[in-house]
């Protein structure tokens, strides 16, 4: 069967194969293209066979990589040919040559539609295939209903329906509106009962796409997926042709488990049990066999099962089984399994707390870092990075450093960035950190971004203890024969600042320091020379008593560069020269750099931005938007070219007290000088994380300081108050530029009806709640989860309780470590009935940003209710005995959210008011009973009757009775709030939903005992 059946085509292919070189091939192709083009021009003379042949030739030429810019029309026109062979060629070639955005496709829509709705099954298949492969939005809009019909109608054969399923999937991807969620959920569930495994496989792919967007609409599919999985895993009733190397369709198994991963949980206990049984069977029953394909297929299923177990956050036992399996996998020889073992271990780190178990495999993972396969090395690097913490940072970073010298170029940048971040994040002591960064620069200078060396300078400047050590280290590196330019920069900078601290050590006299640095000058770029000049000036300043020889040498250099063509170098040389001739004044101007304000590491930020953690993606996007302006600013390097240490990160709260002197000095200089007047002393308020030239960073580097002319020097030290005021970053103004995720009011309302869920979320933090209620007491646990890879600081939670609660919040830690979650239990005791709500005043600091939110806590009246069934014999005497106000209150409520009676009954039940059916003879009425608990009332029975009007659902009459007047009133108002459509909370878009009733002006105790007064106040 070696021939295509088309002689002309075969001959052409042979010709191409016989070409000796690329040039001959091109000639032959050009000749053929010319030939095809002329034949297409007088189309009339073409037989269908010829047309078909030429179109194939075009595709072949196209595949070889040549541009084919004609003949598309001919290919598309074949689609409307009446005969199968031509039509088939038309469809196939069109879907290969064109992509979905091609104009010609529009011409074919009608023909395609006719084929889809026509009676010819083969044509239907051809059309569905093309639309499924290259259909775009327009196809989606005009064909989706027809395709849906084919899929759900049982009168079509499986071969059509399976194509229809995938075709619909394509159209859905192009335009999600083509599938109407409400109508489609049931159909999807029906499709899962399909007997034909081909159709079922295709439908499952469709389901995966649908649930990934709307899992809540497809709940009914969940148990069916579990059934399918069970059937496959037990190999029940699977036709032989659908087993692959003895495994019942591994693909369908994988897809089914994929679909299950989109449902947040499996609630039904029976379904859950069966699912876990299957998963257990897969985890335990997968053996390594000799046959490669069988092995791959069974492990494809196994890895998907692992992912599902991770998603379901199964019991500890199953999780540790998973870790054990992965531990086995990362040690096997088979590279695929090893790769996947590493990959899945990294994923596992993100979902559960298994760090300790994974750490046991550290040695093995490090071995994989040296694997010959770059794919595996990448996975190992990622995993090491993810599993690093204080306990193993030293080992891991040292391994990374060691590996750096042999790593391939493709990985070095990533590697050095990761090593630098880990060193910074988990440094056991700062001198180790300095060691690591210097080694990093030494070994991979080309791959060390400026951010890395800026950061080490920042640390050294801010930590006095570290300065002599860093200077000594820098001095050591300067002795090395050939060092990277970045190393020259960082060591020159450090020696300039702190070299004098080494004065008594051998080889560290000013002269020696100068000469060892000056040796490097001929080899460095113009970008580094200014740094060296500053260093010389500083060394000169520190030389006490002055050394004439050194002075001459340095002056000679300044003299030389005074006429340098580079303006930055020229300016510095000129200024230093002038300054150094002024003697004592030099000491003030060239004084040590002030401490840098605390910043978030630019490195960590960089890493965060590139992190492909889906959970954080929205947060990252948000940040990207917020920083986009700031990035522009960053690019504008200060024109004077000072070492741009000021670009390290963002300005946090400056620790003003320690360095106010320096600040005032420098700032005063620059302000009087007027050169910096354009710099806005405040960071743009929208900026959260962007690198920004903060006010404190601006005045820092020596280059700027010395711009001031000597005449200004007398002004030094004056006017420091004004400067202080200008320099303090107005933290308050930056509050709450973080936007919450989701609607706070809605989250609160949801939590009023259930006991666990998310109370608040923003890009940095998630606050979850889990509550337990027992009679008049409750325990709410707040889960504060830091979503970032850097800590949240100044965390504060204050409870503003209304007077009817006694609340006690356990200690909230000041700092939440990266990616950690802390739990803070809150004890609540209900003293009296009241609808007032407690408010949590929560704040934290991220970067320089203070975020403060006030959140209502879902400790609401209905949490202290206990539904209790009441029989007719109990109800009526009680109902009659409580006659009239204040114990029994009645009100006609208008503006009720219209809902059917059953739904209202559900709502009452979910508020823990138990609806007692058939107590009221009128079917339009509802009667409910419940027990209320508080310290003052103890257990108190409450009865509620709601009379609805079937003609007008927006109004009803409500009667509430209990043995306590306040309770009756409060309960009545509470139910009214729930029934009325008026949203309880103002839905402020901002994060500070002006925290609704901030403990509503609590009525004085006297008022509480006087229901009349209260009534007046409330109505």
């Amino acid at each position, binding site marked *: *069967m070696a021939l295509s059946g088309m002689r002309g085509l075969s001959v052409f292919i042979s010709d191409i194969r016989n070409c000796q070189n690329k040039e001959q091939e091109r000639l032959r192709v050009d000749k053929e293209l010319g030939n095809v083009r002329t034949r297409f021009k007088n189309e009339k003379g073409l037989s269908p066979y010829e047309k078909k042949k030429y179109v194939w030739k075009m595709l072949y030429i196209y595949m070889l990589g040549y541009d084919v810019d004609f003949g598309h029309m001919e290919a598309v026109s074949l689609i409307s040919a009446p005969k199968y062979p031509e039509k088939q060629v038309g469809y*196939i070639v069109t879907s290969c040559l064109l992509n979905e955005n091609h104009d010609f496709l529009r011409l074919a829509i009608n023909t395609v539609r006719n084929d889809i709705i026509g009676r010819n099954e083969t044509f239907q298949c051809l059309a569905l295939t093309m639309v499924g492969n290259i259909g775009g939005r327009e196809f989606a809009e005009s064909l989706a209903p027809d395709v849906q019909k084919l899929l759900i109608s049982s009168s079509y054969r499986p071969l059509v329906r399976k*194509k229809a399923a995938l075709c619909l999937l394509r159209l859905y991807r192009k335009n999600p509106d083509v599938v109407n969620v409400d109508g489609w959920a049931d159909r999807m569930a029906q499709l899962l009962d399909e007997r034909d495994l081909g159709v079922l496989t295709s439908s499952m792919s469709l389901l995966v796409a649908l649930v990934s967007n709307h899992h809540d609409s497809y709940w009914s599919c969940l148990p069916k997926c579990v059934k399918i999985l069970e059937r496959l895993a037990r190999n029940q009733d699977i036709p032989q042709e659908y087993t692959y190397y003895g495994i019942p369709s591994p693909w369908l198994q994988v897809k089914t488990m994929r679909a299950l991963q989109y449902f947040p949980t499996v609630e039904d206990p029976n379904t859950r049990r069966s699912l876990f049984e299957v998963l257990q069977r897969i985890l335990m029953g997968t053996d390594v066999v000799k046959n490669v394909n069988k092995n791959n297929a069974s492990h*494809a299923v196994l*890895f998907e099962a692992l992912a599902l177990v991770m998603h379901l956050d199964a019991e500890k036992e199953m999780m540790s089984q998973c870790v054990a399996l992965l531990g086995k996998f990362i040690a096997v020889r088979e590279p695929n399994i090893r790769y996947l073992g590493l990959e899945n271990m990294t994923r596992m780190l993100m979902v559960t707390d298994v760090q300790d178990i994974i750490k046991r495999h550290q040695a093995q993972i490090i071995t994989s870092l040296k694997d010959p396969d770059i794919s595996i090395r990448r996975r190992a690097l990622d995993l090491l990075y993810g599993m690093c913490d204080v306990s193993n940072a030293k080992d891991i970073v040292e391994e990374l450093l060691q590996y750096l010298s042999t790593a391939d170029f493709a990985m070095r940048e990533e590697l050095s960035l990761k090593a630098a971040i880990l060193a910074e994040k988990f440094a056991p002591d700062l001198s180790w950190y300095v060691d690591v960064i210097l080694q990093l620069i030494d070994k991979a200078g080309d791959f060390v971004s400026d951010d890395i060396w800026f950061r080490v300078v920042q640390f050294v400047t801010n930590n006095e203890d570290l300065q002599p050590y860093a200077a000594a280290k820098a001095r050591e590196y300067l002795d090395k024969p050939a060092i990277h330019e970045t190393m020259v920069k960082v060591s020159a900078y450090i020696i300039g600042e702190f070299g004098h601290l080494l004065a008594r050590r051998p080889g560290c006299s000013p002269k020696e320091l100068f000469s060892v640095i000056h040796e490097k000058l001929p080899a460095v770029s113009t970008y580094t020379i200014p740094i060296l000049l500053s260093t010389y000036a500083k060394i000169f300043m520190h030389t006490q008593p002055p050394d004439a020889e050194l002075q001459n040498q340095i002056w000679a250099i300044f003299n030389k560069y005074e006429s340098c063509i580079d303006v930055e170098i020229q300016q510095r040389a000129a200024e230093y020269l002038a300054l150094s001739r002024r003697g004592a004044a030099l000491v003030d101007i060239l004084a040590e750099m002030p401490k840098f304000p605390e910043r978030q590491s630019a490195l960590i930020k960089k890493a965060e931005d590139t992190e492909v953690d889906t959970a954080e993606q929205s947060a990252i996007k948000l940040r990207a938007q917020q920083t986009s302006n700031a990035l522009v600013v960053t690019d504008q390097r200060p024109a004077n070219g000072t070492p741009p240490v000021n670009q390290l990160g963002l300005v946090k709260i400056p620790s003003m007290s320690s360095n106010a002197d320096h600040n005032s000095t420098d700032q005063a200089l620059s302000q009087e000088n007027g050169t910096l007047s354009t710099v806005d002393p405040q960071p743009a308020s929208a900026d959260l994380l962007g690198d920004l030239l903060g006010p404190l960073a601006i005045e820092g580097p020596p280059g700027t300081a010395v711009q001031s002319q000597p005449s200004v020097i007398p002004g030094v030290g004056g006017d420091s108050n004004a400067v202080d005021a200008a320099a303090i970053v107005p933290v308050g103004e930056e509050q709450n530029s973080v936007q919450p995720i989701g609607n706070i009011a809605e989250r609160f309302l949801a939590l009023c009806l259930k006991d666990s869920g998310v109370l608040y979320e923003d890009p940095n933090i998630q606050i979850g709640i889990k509550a337990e209620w027992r009679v008049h007491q409750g325990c709410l646990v707040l889960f504060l989860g830091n979503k970032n890879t850097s800590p949240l600081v100044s965390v504060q939670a204050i409870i503003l309780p209304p007077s009817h609660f006694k609340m006690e919040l356990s200690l909230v830690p000041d700092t939440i470590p990266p990616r950690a979650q802390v739990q803070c239990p809150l004890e609540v005791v209900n003293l009296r009935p009241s609808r007032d709500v407690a408010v949590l005043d929560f704040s934290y600091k991220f970067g320089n940003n203070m975020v403060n939110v006030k959140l209502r806590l879902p400790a609401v009246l209905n949490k202290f209710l206990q539904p209790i069934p009441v029989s007719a014999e109990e109800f009526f005497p009680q109902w009659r005995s409580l006659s009239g106000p204040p114990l029994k209150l009645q009100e006609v409520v208008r503006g009720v959210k219209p809902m059917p009676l059953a739904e209202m009954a559900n709502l009452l039940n979910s508020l823990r008011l138990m609806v007692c059916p058939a107590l009221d003879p009128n079917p339009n009425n509802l009667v409910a009973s419940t027990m209320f608990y508080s310290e003052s009332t103890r257990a108190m029975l409450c009865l509620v009757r709601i009379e609805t009007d079937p003609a007008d659902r927006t109004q009803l009459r409500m009667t509430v009775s209990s043995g306590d007047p306040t309770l009756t009133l409060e309960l009545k108002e509470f139910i009214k709030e729930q029934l009325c459509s008026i949203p309880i909370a103002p839905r402020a878009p901002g994060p500070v939903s002006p925290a609704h009733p901030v403990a509503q002006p609590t009525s004085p105790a006297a008022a509480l005992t006087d229901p009349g007064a209260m009534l007046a106040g409330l109505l």
Partner: protein
Amino acid sequence: MIHFVILVSRQGKVRLTKWFSPYTQKERSKVMRELSGIILNRGPKLCNFVEWRGFKVVYKRYASLYFCMCVDQNDNELETLEIIHHYVEILDRYFGSVCELDLIFNFHKAYYILDELLLAGELQESSKRTVGRMIATHDRFVEVAKEEASSIGTFIAQVRM
């Protein structure tokens, strides 16, 4: 989902390409150049996965031909690897121990078969027998049409005589 399928020979000659995501002509050639550069240079006993521009390329070599499929980062790699093998087995069954030459001269058949196996970048049919049946039906249709054409040709010729 599978974004594209590429068959490329050890010498870097492209034998088949199928794109399920929209790429322009330019992007297509760039992707092919880049990937054949990466994949052809990988040694023998390495894993079958390559991380590339935020995607994963799953590939396998059969004799002189590399079969590559590009999938999303979170897709199941081994599953994709076995889709490749599944395709190869179907080709093998159809051509009877398939070799590169079969695919060169019958590249259009390779396309038909792929269309019965994958659709919208997803696996469409996992039964080799069903795919085989479909291809046989196609072939028969083409055959029938050809016979009809030739019989009409003979008929016309006879009339002219």
